[in-house]
């Protein structure tokens, strides 16, 4: 008696399943990538001293530096030349150390121009 055995060809199913597994992995990886991106973007909610016009802009809108201007006004109003030189050296040192938000030399010229005559 002959028995016929039918072979079920499941190559198509396996191929289809593999495609879906790879697709799922890609989707999950992309989702993880985007979730990490959102958490990085939420870091832009830190409102610091400087204001950036857009997320990608490297430029910064400079504000004012009250402390530098107060010091420069003191420099302008000092009578003694010796003290003036010492103070100028000290302020230059502080400027080199990055302690001011504005450019030291240009702000100094601005303050001297404005207040030296008075």
């Amino acid at each position, binding site marked *: 008696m002959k028995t016929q055995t039918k072979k079920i060809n499941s190559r198509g199913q396996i191929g*289809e399943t593999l495609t879906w597994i790879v697709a799922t992995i890609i*989707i999950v990886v992309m989702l993880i990538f*985007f*979730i990490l*991106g959102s958490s990085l973007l939420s870091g832009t*909610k830190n*409102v610091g001293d400087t204001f950036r016009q857009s997320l990608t802009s490297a430029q910064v809108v400079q504000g004012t530096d009250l402390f530098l201007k107060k010091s420069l006004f003191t420099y302008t109003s000092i009578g003694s030349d010796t003290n003036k030189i010492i103070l100028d050296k000290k*302020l230059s040192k502080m400027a080199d150390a990055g302690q001011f938000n504005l450019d030291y030399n240009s702000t100094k010229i601005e303050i001297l121009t404005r207040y030296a005559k008075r």
Partner: protein
Amino acid sequence: MKINKKGDKLLSIYWFAILVIVATGVVIMVNVYYGSPYDVRQVESGILANHVANCIYFGGEVNPSLISSNGIFKEDFRDHFMNYCTLNFSVEGEFTQIPYYLEINFFKGIDSPTSVFNISEGNQNLKSDCGVDVQDKSKLSKCTSNSFFMKLNSNDVYFVKILAVVSKVNENTN
């Protein structure tokens, strides 16, 4: 011939499972972004430091309540500093900690290392958060340290160092 659609039904279920995964991902992304509050403490500490600086030295004039013409600092200014400089650190709730700390040091001369007068107000425990070197500083207080030179009518120059610290971690972080 019967068309076997069992595979199709399985695919449909799987397709909706993918949609659910994507939807969950989008919801997580949205919540992560919109759920995090704005952190304004750095600006706030800067404004606090500016406020104190203007109180001490404004328009080229030192606050007359701070120091006499012969260079003697008035204790009354330290005792009533908050009133003189229109500051109020009081908080709601009995067990709520004050979220601010202020420290002002005065040095006589341009290069003097020793402070001749100092004022401190607020929660001193916050000072230790400044200068801590860790990767995630969001749960630490935000500090602003600024300094300037002021001149008295007697031509004496003083160096003023202001440290302003703002905590408020719950209102500004997740």
